[in-house]
């Protein structure tokens, strides 16, 4: 398994655990007086699961298993694959912090950090598509 794939899959496993942990907090909310910041956890829970776990696992396995692009660059541009990893994770982690924080804090900077998070994740998606598209070809 290539190192970049290991990076994606290990990160995806961490997100899976984190998503389930946030899921526990969400079911505890109606029962206990938890901090107000937990009110913003629903979209975080869903995106930790779908972007952090499902998407990242797919990206890692696709990078590993999809048809080879060429003999010299069998998995396309590694720089694009690494960019996908860092952009996706930076964007998602920024969202995890900024989105709930915006609900309990009047600081306008949180809003701009959410915009940055959206931009980083969008760029990650584009980098993945750009690197994967040429590998999707008939044999």
């Amino acid at each position, binding site marked *: 398994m290539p190192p970049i794939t290991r990076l994606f899959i290990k990160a995806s496993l961490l997100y899976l655990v984190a998503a389930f942990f946030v899921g526990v907090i969400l079911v505890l909310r109606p029962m206990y007086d938890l901090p107000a910041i937990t009110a913003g956890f629903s979209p975080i829970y869903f995106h930790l699961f779908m972007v952090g776990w499902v998407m990242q696992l797919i990206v890692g396995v696709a990078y590993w298993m*999809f048809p080879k692009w060429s003999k010299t660059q069998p998995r396309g541009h590694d720089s694009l694959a690494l960019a996908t990893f860092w952009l996706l994770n930076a964007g998602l982690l920024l969202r995890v912090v900024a989105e709930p924080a915006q609900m309990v804090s009047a600081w306008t900077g949180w809003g*701009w950090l959410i915009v940055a998070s959206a931009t980083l994740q969008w760029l990650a998606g584009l980098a993945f598509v750009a690197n994967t598209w040429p590998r999707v070809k008939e044999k």
Partner: protein
Amino acid sequence: MPRLSVWFVRAALIYLTLGFTFGGLMLANKGVPIHPLIWRLLPSHIEFLLFGWTIQLAFGVAFWILPRWQTQRGNVRPAWAAFLLLNGGIWLVVAGSWFNWPAWTLVSGRLLETAAVAAFAWHAWPRVKPWVEGSP
């Protein structure tokens, strides 16, 4: 990768781009309000990423890697039908949500998607079989 898988996976990548673009716009709009109409992208964001990206990618990869009979993938017509029905269904549901079309368009879209997954299951069912020596 067989031709149908190429169609499935490339379509999935297009839906991923659209779904991420819509999701990015909605998230940015949450941080710094841009326009209230951006929230109307939510149904298409979900539709594109759940059905257009995830399911379509799974179908494309399954068609490619499930066990074959020598070089044959069995009856491929239902799998091609699944591709057409799934994409028709997705766009019917999405267009209905964008243009406020009557509820029957949503029902029709969902019925097409249901027919798509049934057609793919019909194709894939016999390929889920034990390994036999000499088969790929």
